[in-house]
C-alpha cells in the first residue's frame, strides 16, 4: 500500500512537472525525484519481501493494509511538507521576500 501510494504520488507530480516544463519555478522536479527515489527504494524492499513470503505478499491482512495506507498518506504529506519548506526557503519567485519587505514598509 505504501509503495502504491508513493508511486501514484510520483506519477501525479511528474505529470504536473511535465505540464509546466521547462518552467520549474515551483520546484516540482524536486518533489517528483523525491517520490521516485522513495518508490524505487520501497520497490526493492517489496522484491525482498516477495522472495521471503511468496504469494502471501499479495494477500495482506486488512489491519496491515489500513496501517500501510495511513503510512503511505503520511509519507506523501511529509514529502509535501519538505517540498514546501524548501520552496519557501529558496523562494524562486521572490514572493516571500516581496511579502516581508512589503509588511515592513
Amino acid at each position, binding site marked *: 500500500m*505504501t509503495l502504491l501510494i*508513493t508511486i501514484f504520488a510520483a506519477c501525479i507530480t511528474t505529470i504536473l512537472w511535465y505540464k509546466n516544463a521547462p518552467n520549474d519555478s515551483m520546484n516540482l*522536479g*524536486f518533489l517528483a*525525484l*523525491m*517520490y*521516485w*527515489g*522513495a*518508490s*524505487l*527504494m*520501497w*520497490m*526493492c*524492499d517489496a*522484491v*525482498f519481501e516477495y522472495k521471503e513470503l511468496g504469494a502471501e505478499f499479495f494477500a495482506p491482512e486488512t489491519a496491515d493494509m489500513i496501517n500501510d495506507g495511513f*503510512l503511505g498518506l*503520511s*509519507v506523501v504529506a*511529509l*514529502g509535501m511538507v*519538505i517540498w514546501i519548506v524548501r520552496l519557501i526557503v529558496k523562494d524562486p519567485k521572490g514572493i516571500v521576500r516581496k511579502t516581508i519587505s512589503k509588511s515592513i514598509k
Partner: protein
Amino acid sequence: MACFLVPAGEAIVTIVLTKAFKSKEKAELEVSKEEIHEAVSSKIPFSKKLSWLNNMLWGGSALLAFEHVWHGEVVAWFPFLTAMESHDEAIAMLHEMSTVGVSMAVLVTAVWGIMAMASDIIMKKQELDEVSGLEPIKVEDSLED
C-alpha cells in the same frame, strides 16, 4: 531495520561530489567563458545530473527514515536504532543493510544512470535536429548567391 542508511550514506558522498564538480565547472567557466557557454548549451553539466541523484537519494532516505520511525525501528534516544539493543538483532540489521540497503542504492543509481544517458541522447538528438534544420537554408542561400 536500517536499510535507508546505505542510500543516505551514498547521498553524503554524492553531495560532496556535486560540490566538487560545481566548483570545477565554475573554475572552467572563468577560464574561457565562450567555450564553456557552447559546451553548456549542448550538454547538461555533470553537477546538475548529480543533483538529480542527490534529490532521489535524500528524498527517498528521508521518507524511508520516517517509515522506520513509524514502525518503531528508529527512536529519538541513543543508540537511535532499536536493533542495536541486542547482538542478534544488530547482526540481522547489518545483514539487511548489506542486502536490501545496497540493492536500494544500486537500483536508484542505476535508474539515475539511465536518466543521465537518456538526457544526453535527447540533447544530442536535439543538436542534430538543429544542425539538419539549418542545412537546407544554407543550400538555398548558396544557390541564391
